[in-house]
């Protein structure tokens, strides 16, 4: 996937290596924004990032070990919504806490007008972004081709590097 045409559009090459809800956003936001600017975009999904190519994105988020994450309530008066709740780290290890934190973040994002990760992925596919799943990660974690959406391809490090060699912008997320 080298660029041979000198008039080819700009190219963005991204590596998406994380599978939590918070880190699912940056690669899809950058990919869709670049594609909207008529850039050519390829995203290589590796390690935990590979789970973002599954049919249903089940990405969760937790403030445990993630101290910069604000804990906000997505309902009530504005002052209440903007308050950052001090949750003790020990409470974050209670079963079900991840689901609660994930639900709160999803609702906050929705209230503010941020698209869901799944919607951004649909837009990325629609805009022609190349989504590449990492074969090695599939082998390691026991994923099959059918676990992933049809709009993606499968490749390895050499595939990505050849693509990235001709990219104006290349980022690891």
């Amino acid at each position, binding site marked *: 996937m080298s660029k041979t045409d000198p008039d080819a559009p*700009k190219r963005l090459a991204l590596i998406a290596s994380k599978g939590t809800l918070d880190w699912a956003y940056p690669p899809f*936001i*950058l990919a*869709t*924004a670049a*594609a*909207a*600017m*008529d*850039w050519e975009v390829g995203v290589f999904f590796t390690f935990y990032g590979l789970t973002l190519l599954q049919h249903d994105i089940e990405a969760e988020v937790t403030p445990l070990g993630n101290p910069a994450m604000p804990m906000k309530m997505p309902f009530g008066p504005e002052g209440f919504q903007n308050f950052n709740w001090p949750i003790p780290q020990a409470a974050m290890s209670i079963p079900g806490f991840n689901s609660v934190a994930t639900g709160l973040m999803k609702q906050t994002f929705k209230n*503010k*007008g*941020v*698209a869901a990760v799944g919607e*951004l992925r649909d*837009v990325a596919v629609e*805009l022609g972004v190349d989504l590449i799943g990492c074969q090695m990660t599939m082998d390691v974690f026991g994923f099959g081709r059918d676990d992933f959406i049809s709009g993606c391809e499968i490749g390895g490090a050499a595939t990505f590097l050849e693509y990235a060699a001709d990219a104006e912008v290349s980022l690891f997320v």
Partner: protein
Amino acid sequence: MNTIQADSELDCSGMLCPMPVVRTSQAIKKLEVGQVLKMIATDPGAPPDMEAWSRQTGHELLQSVEEDGAYVFHFRCTK
């Protein structure tokens, strides 16, 4: 203030980054060269982002104004 005649209008009110840029890109592809798209956004990040989008795509930003807490853009389709 707003005297530019638009051929098409897009309302991105309430949307945050990157959706105004994405929707504008999709909307302008439906226009002919020379036609004008009016876009309304409420995201305070929209003015710098739409200027960057215009520079990157070449679609000309004719006007960018703030009206009653909303940002109104006019773009001329160039390709």
